């Protein structure tokens, strides 16, 4: 292709999207990385500060507790969401006449933003369940789950699982129905039980679905913000802040732009490393068909 024509093609097709991408994502990201090594205060910086911001971030005890809380949240929510989603996918693909209706019910929470779901559940935990518990004397629920760090953690897990399991269910359904019928037939003729078929035939043939669903839940766990802010708001006493909310509060509430941004970079590194490890491990388990 002549040079003039290829430049014209670039200008017509790619120049606009790539410049928007550059301006909105690449520049702020690199700038953010650079600013963590300066004494930036949100507006300007006067000198380089080495790794001071990172040292300060790690000296902040509330950051450590956020990291712990986030790690627990990511691990537990990954397990609960995927177990529930896989179960739902099995249920929906079990050839019932009502499968489609069930699928709709399981999927709907997903359509709605985390903030709205968060406040709906805030009402449930703070008002509905408490008033029911008082009426019927359920001791475990007479005080709101959102008042204690430990129970608030489980409240976050319940809401997140309820929200995300429908989406992951769709991914598992896609995996389950992509398995060829003759493979399942062969397993049946060989006398494999339903459980055995699932463990040795179905799951190995749909590892790709697990790779995707685990990746999405891992990333979603690290980035969770909406449900967190609407359900617990980080309370009681900032003990249920996931890393996103912690960064937001550090920077925009407390005005610590330097440490806020360093913590954001740390978050990025954690997501990237965890995702790389997870995808590599799952890919290795995928079966060549």
């Amino acid at each position, binding site marked *: 292709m002549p040079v003039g024509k290829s430049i014209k093609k670039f200008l017509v*097709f790619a120049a606009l999207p790539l410049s928007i991408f550059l301006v909105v994502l690449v520049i702020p990201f690199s700038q953010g990385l650079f600013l963590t090594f300066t004494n930036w205060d949100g507006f300007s910086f006067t000198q380089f500060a080495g790794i001071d911001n990172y040292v300060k971030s790690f000296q902040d005890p509330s950051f450590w507790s956020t990291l712990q809380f986030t790690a627990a949240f990511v691990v537990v929510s990954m397990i609960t969401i995927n177990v529930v989603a896989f179960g739902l996918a099995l249920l929906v693909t079990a050839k019932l006449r009502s499968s489609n209706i069930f699928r709709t019910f399981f999927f709907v929470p997903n359509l709605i933003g*985390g903030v709205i779901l968060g406040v709906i559940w805030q009402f449930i935990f703070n008002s509905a369940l408490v008033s029911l518990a008082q009426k019927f004397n359920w001791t475990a629920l007479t005080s709101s789950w959102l008042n204690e760090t430990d129970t608030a953690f489980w409240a976050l897990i319940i809401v997140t699982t309820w929200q995300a399991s429908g989406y992951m269910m769709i991914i598992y359904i896609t995996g389950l129905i992509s398995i060829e019928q003759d493979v399942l037939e062969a397993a049946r003729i060989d006398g494999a039980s339903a459980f055995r078929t699932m463990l040795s035939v179905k799951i190995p043939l749909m590892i790709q679905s697990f790779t995707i669903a685990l990746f999405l839940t891992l990333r979603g766990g690290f980035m969770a913000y909406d449900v967190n802010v609407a359900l617990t708001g980080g309370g009681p006493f900032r003990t249920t802040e996931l890393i996103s909310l912690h960064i937001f509060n550090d920077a925009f509430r407390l005005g610590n732009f330097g440490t806020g941004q360093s913590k954001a970079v740390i978050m990025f590194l954690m997501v990237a490393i965890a995702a790389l490890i997870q995808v590599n491990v799952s890919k290795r388990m995928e079966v060549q068909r």
Partner: protein
Amino acid sequence: MIQKKSIGTKIIFLLGLVLSVSYAMPFVLVALNSVKPKFEILANPLALPIVFTWDNFNQAITKMNYFQSLTNSIIITTFSVLALILISSMLAYYLSRTKNKFTKVTFLILVASMIVPFQALMIPFMALFAPMVSWNNRASLIFFYMGFGVALSTFLYHGFISNIPVELDEAASIDGAGDFTIFWRIIFPMLKPVTATVAIINALWIWNDFLLPVLVLTPETQTLPLSTYLFYGQYSTEYGQAMAGLLLAVFPIIAFYLVLQRQFISGISSGAVK
């Protein structure tokens, strides 16, 4: 087969029924309480309404500026999605048809960027774009969504376009069509299934997004999630009104989903499996 169906199927059906009911419970609770006066909600949030009232809805609609926020949400989502379809399909066409080092590297950068969480650049982002946001925050938000959505959308289009034979372009080119015509008249119409996927995935994300609108929008340009959240924060002790507000916020997207259910499901499954 008929024999097998009886007990096993019944158990599975029952399990599905119980689970469906529990998945829907929070929404049922909201709907139930949205038509009850406050004292009834306090007495028993699970009971059916005795005194039926629409007043909660009237109050919620005015207090959360329902129609204004709904309009804002529709405008922002529609324009962002249309813009994303436009720029991503063209970029994907360019990247998959022009094969050289530059396009290869660009594509890799786009894919890698999908792992960057917004939080990782949110702080410098707000400092950088403050002047633009104060000039026109709705237009800025649409612009931001184009930037944040272009990677995934291009990725989805790229996979699809790579499967369309180049001979098609060549034939049209021999007939005298330019690149622009080839893309819009021949390629783009063939992309309908991916376009549906791209539209649905982006519309869901943008419609429900909270963090970016919180940082960017002002009271007059608030989207629905934002105004619902603020309304709930202010009136959470007025349970009935709060529930009516939540129901109003949930309603449009569920209605939209029920109309386009098949497209939603196939869009999400093909989008996720890339």
